[in-house]
């Protein structure tokens, strides 16, 4: 892919920047990297108590707490990476004004740290699956494709945001609002079955919803409403194609703007 070709030379730089990023993230904290494991653990406990014992929302879905946790962890990656990438260029303004390297290196290196956190979170999910004896079906290998699509979506959005933020500082606030809205518009905390059918179908057009539901289907339980088992053939391709379109446009926009970053940042 063209990304790899461009950055082969700068691989070392990406590694160093990502390493620095990671070191600094938990600097001075007592638990350090362990927080990446402790956070989802604690989250699971809270979700379990609230949703199984108190609210009893997800009674219709088996293993609801893990179902929830997976969704929350995945959304966490999306919201964290997009929010952090937003500022990746501007925060490194000093660097950009003094040295040349493909600016995309900054977005990628920031992404690696979030990616590592996400993987650690997934490990916790898998642990819970093992403890609760949830065994995914043979189609679990499709999860790789779903995750790939997920990264494409998240990174694509990140390209856009980081380039836009250089020119328009309100993007930070705007994105915050959009993320909040999206969070509730995506069936993360509540099962899709609670929503009227038509609205549910519209919600599934959102790639984030489609991805999370697909992941849940493959990993946790077949009793999940997904895009492909709900939407008609006319619309089902929309959420699957959107991430790639977003990625290509985002990548192009970023590269076009990159030449002027040093002057504008």
């Amino acid at each position, binding site marked *: 892919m063209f990304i790899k070709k461009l950055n082969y030379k700068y691989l070392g730089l990406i590694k*160093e920047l990502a390493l*620095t990023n990671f070191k600094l993230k938990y600097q001075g904290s007592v638990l350090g990297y362990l927080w990446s494991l402790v956070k989802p653990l604690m989250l699971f406990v809270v979700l379990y108590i609230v949703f199984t014992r108190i609210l009893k929302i997800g009674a219709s879905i088996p293993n609801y707490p893990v179902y929830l946790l997976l969704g929350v962890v995945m959304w966490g990656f999306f919201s964290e990476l997009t929010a952090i990438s937003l500022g990746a260029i501007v925060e490194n303004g000093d*660097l950009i*004004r003094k*040295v*040349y390297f493909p600016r995309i290196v900054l977005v990628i290196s920031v992404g690696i740290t979030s990616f590592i956190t996400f993987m650690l979170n997934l490990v916790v999910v898998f642990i819970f699956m093992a403890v609760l004896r949830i065994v995914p079906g043979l189609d679990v290998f499709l999860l790789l494709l779903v995750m790939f699509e997920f990264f494409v979506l998240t990174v694509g959005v990140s390209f856009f945001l980081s380039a836009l933020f250089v*020119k328009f500082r*309100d993007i930070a606030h*705007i994105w915050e609002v959009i993320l909040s809205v999206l969070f509730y518009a995506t069936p993360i905390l509540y099962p899709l079955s609670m929503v009227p059918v038509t609205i549910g179908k519209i919600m599934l057009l959102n790639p984030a919803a489609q991805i999370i539901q697909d992941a849940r289907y493959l990993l946790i339980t077949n009793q999940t409403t997904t895009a492909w088992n709900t939407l008609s053939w006319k619309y089902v391709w929309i959420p699957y194609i959107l991430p790639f379109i977003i990625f290509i446009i985002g990548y192009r926009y970023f590269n076009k703007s990159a030449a002027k970053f*040093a002057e504008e940042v």
Partner: protein
Amino acid sequence: MEKYGNMATNSGKEVVIKVENLSKTFRIPHEKTTTLKGAALGLFTKKRYEKFKALDDVSLEIKEGEFFGIIGRNGSGKSTLLKMLAGIYVPDSGKITINGKLSPFLELGVGFNPELTARENVFLGGAILGLRRSEISEKFDDIVRFAELEEFIDMKFKNFSSGMQVRLAFSLAINAHAEILLMDEVLAVGDSNFQAKCLDEFEDYKKRGKTVVLVTHNIDVVKKYCDRALLLRKGKVFDIGRADKISRQYIEQNVGDEIERTNTEATEEVNKEKNTGVEKVDILNQNQKAGTVFESGSAFFILVRYKIKTRVVNPVFGIVIRDASGKQIFVTNTEFKKVDTSKFDKGLVEVKYKIENILAPGHYSISPAIADSSGRILDWEDDLASFRVVNRDYESGGLVDLEHDIIISGGQK
């Protein structure tokens, strides 16, 4: 930026940096719009931009192994040019071709993070400068040794003194593997001991035949280390040539600008005077041409124009010439010289002083004055104009340049 394989020129040395008709304009908005609201509103109001042409049709060629200086006043475009060579800015028009690996040192310690240890910063900083991890590991000991920081290498960078920080940054920069170095006035760093070390490195670079492009204000450095230099003026190439020639031009340019500035300021100020007083000073050389630089040994003229508002009878016109330190070198007036001044009604008066220049080279200022017949000063403009004296064909020092010959007897031929 493109890379060519081989750009050999007639002299046999490859051209490693080639700049062709490079121009760069910055649009500086009067009010920086960084919000959507601002941008949206901006659609309706006329955007006020200031277009600043930082570089105008700059062309140059730098050969392999050259130590090339770029000098010019602040705002002449030197840093912009360097940043364009480094790939940080993109040209509006023109082309830059670089043949070889470039290491830019536009600032020391780029990317250094105070929360990391010195060791970690070396690897980070090295990666930013384009070094591979293996290369950094190889040179690590040399880098630490040059900076004299062996004991502190695992300490957090924020705990270093600024001198130590600078030493490490410079040491890394020096040891970075590169064929072409771009440096931007990173010379004013560290204590004198360290500075001496750095200057030794420059000598080393010259010997090793590395190509260096150096942006600086320091004329001594240009004269000592540079082979050729470029003098930039307001974004345009003023001249490119041998370092000593360019240095001289730079000095003259600077002083000329300074004189022009003080003279322009002076004229503007004085013109506002409502009372009788000095209006303007012009300095002319022996050919009656206006100028600011005069050779000792020839005559020059100081022309002072006074504006008379109310009738004066037998006024005294005079000037004081001061040297760069403010010492009075020469004072004269119509009374001393016993020149008759009669009655002057409202109008303009021009007083011309013809002076045989025996001043030593240096900068001087002129303070003209006018007083009434009783000695009461009507106007005195301190240091209203300035000029510079240069030797004709030999050097001398001190305050005056006396006509002299030197005769030696004895000794062997």
